[in-house]
């Protein structure tokens, strides 16, 4: 077998396993609804979800576009903000002492409880959802990057110091690149949870987006559309995570352990 065929087979096997699990779950779902006589406004059968998915494809795509935009903007701003704060905390002890409680607080306060407030402050547009996404990812980004910055191997630091490197240079040319793999794991987590922030923001008050669509479909007992929106959201999140994972692996090609498995 050629290398290409082996590779194709491996990819098929990798995709096949989760797809098989999904098909099995779908079949179970279908069986419960059909044999159990569950009313479709409580749990629609998979085929009517598929029909809703196709019939409302324009609506769903538009809503997904809004949610994706909010998520990506939140990821970018949250990464820049969290990254900058982690660097500042590493560079200066006063910043570290003053800001660390705030970073912890951003995780300790349930961000979802803040959603109504954020909508009040930032309006029904995408701004409040972007802020939600930023708040949700701020802690994993900042703490993973800060940890990475702190845990530079002592031997690497000795080398830079033995060459008389100034502290600023050590931070930017040694600690920063050495912490990128840690930042990358924070980013992977962030990519998986950022859509959550956006969708929660949409639930509370919005005029578009997947969360908004789910909310309206739910109140109208269009459970099949609600399930279709959920499916789109899940697919989008998985694809976003996968895209971020691949992009990071490509950027951090020098990390010896960063082999895809």
């Amino acid at each position, binding site marked *: 077998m050629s290398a290409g065929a082996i590779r194709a087979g491996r990819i098929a096997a990798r995709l096949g396993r989760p797809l098989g699990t999904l098909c099995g779950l779908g079949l179970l779902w279908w069986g419960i609804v059909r044999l159990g006589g569950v009313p479709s406004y409580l749990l629609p059968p998979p085929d009517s979800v598929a029909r809703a998915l196709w019939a409302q494809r324009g609506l769903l795509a538009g809503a997904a576009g809004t949610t994706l935009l909010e998520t990506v903007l939140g990821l970018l701003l949250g990464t820049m903000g969290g990254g900058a704060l982690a660097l500042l905390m590493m560079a200066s002890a006063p910043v570290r002492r003053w800001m660390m409680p705030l970073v912890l607080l951003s995780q300790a306060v349930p961000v979802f409880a803040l959603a109504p407030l954020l909508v009040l402050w930032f309006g029904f547009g995408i701004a409040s959802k972007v802020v939600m996404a930023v708040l949700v990812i701020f802690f994993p980004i900042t703490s993973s990057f800060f940890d990475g910055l702190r845990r530079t191997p002592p031997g690497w630091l*000795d080398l830079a110091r*033995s*060459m008389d490197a100034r502290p600023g240079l050590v931070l930017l040319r040694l600690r920063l690149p*050495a912490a990128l793999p840690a930042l990358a794991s924070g980013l992977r987590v962030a990519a998986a949870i950022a859509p959550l922030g956006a969708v929660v923001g949409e639930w509370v008050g919005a005029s578009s987006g997947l969360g908004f669509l789910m909310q309206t479909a739910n109140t109208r007992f269009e459970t099949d559309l609600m399930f279709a929106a959920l499916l789109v959201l899940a697919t989008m999140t998985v694809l976003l995570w996968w895209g971020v994972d691949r992009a990071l692996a490509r950027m951090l090609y020098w990390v*010896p352990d960063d082999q895809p498995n």
Partner: protein
Amino acid sequence: MVTTPTHPAHPLGLALHHIDHGYAIGGTDTPVLDDISLTIAPGEFVALLGPSGCGKSTLLRLIAGLEPPRAGTILAEGTPITGPGPDRIVMFQDPTLYPWRTVRGNVALGHDIAGRKDPASVDAAIELVGLKGFERAWPHQLSGGMAQRAALARALVNDPRLLILDEPLGKLDSLTRLTMQTELQRLWRDRGFTAIMVTHDVEEALLLATRIIVFSPRPARIIGDLPIDLPPHRHRDDPRLLDLRKNILTQLGHSADW
């Protein structure tokens, strides 16, 4: 063999006066160095030999300026050492290559830190250690020996007046080790720097050094100071080396093991 660029040799001389040092390990104070006094002439190749964990590497850290001694002074040409300096370059037991820099980027590290650009000397150093053609390789693509060669090039590119060798060949396989010993000696001869090397390998010390300092178990005291008055091209089976070896092993308390 590549012709070595000729550098004006200004090897560094050192004087250590009554150095005491220690660490707080698990709440108790552990003395590591006990009244070390030592004078090293410019251009010497000094091997520090002693039982593992006795404090030899700590002594190197003090000479490199990575930490100050608790007591005593270290003078480099009469001036006290207060911190690291570009004239004293360390080669560690691990190659310590930064994985996000290519071989070339790692060798150029000293230049980058000093804000200097001198690609010609970086190329020359890479060629000198036999890594020509691997400039763009990443550290994880190198074998242990190649990585340590890159570390050697990174040290040499700074034109050190004192090369501080913290058991740099300790983790290499025995064949690579023999080659690197020869290379190290050739470089020392051609470049004319002073070298201080920590090693556990009596044979390595006998082959390379002009003088061997023997340390006691921790806290390290100097228990032997042997000049090796033999020409640089030494044969491993030279009977005079065998005599010295027996002498050193006896001092280290292994009289029966040679």
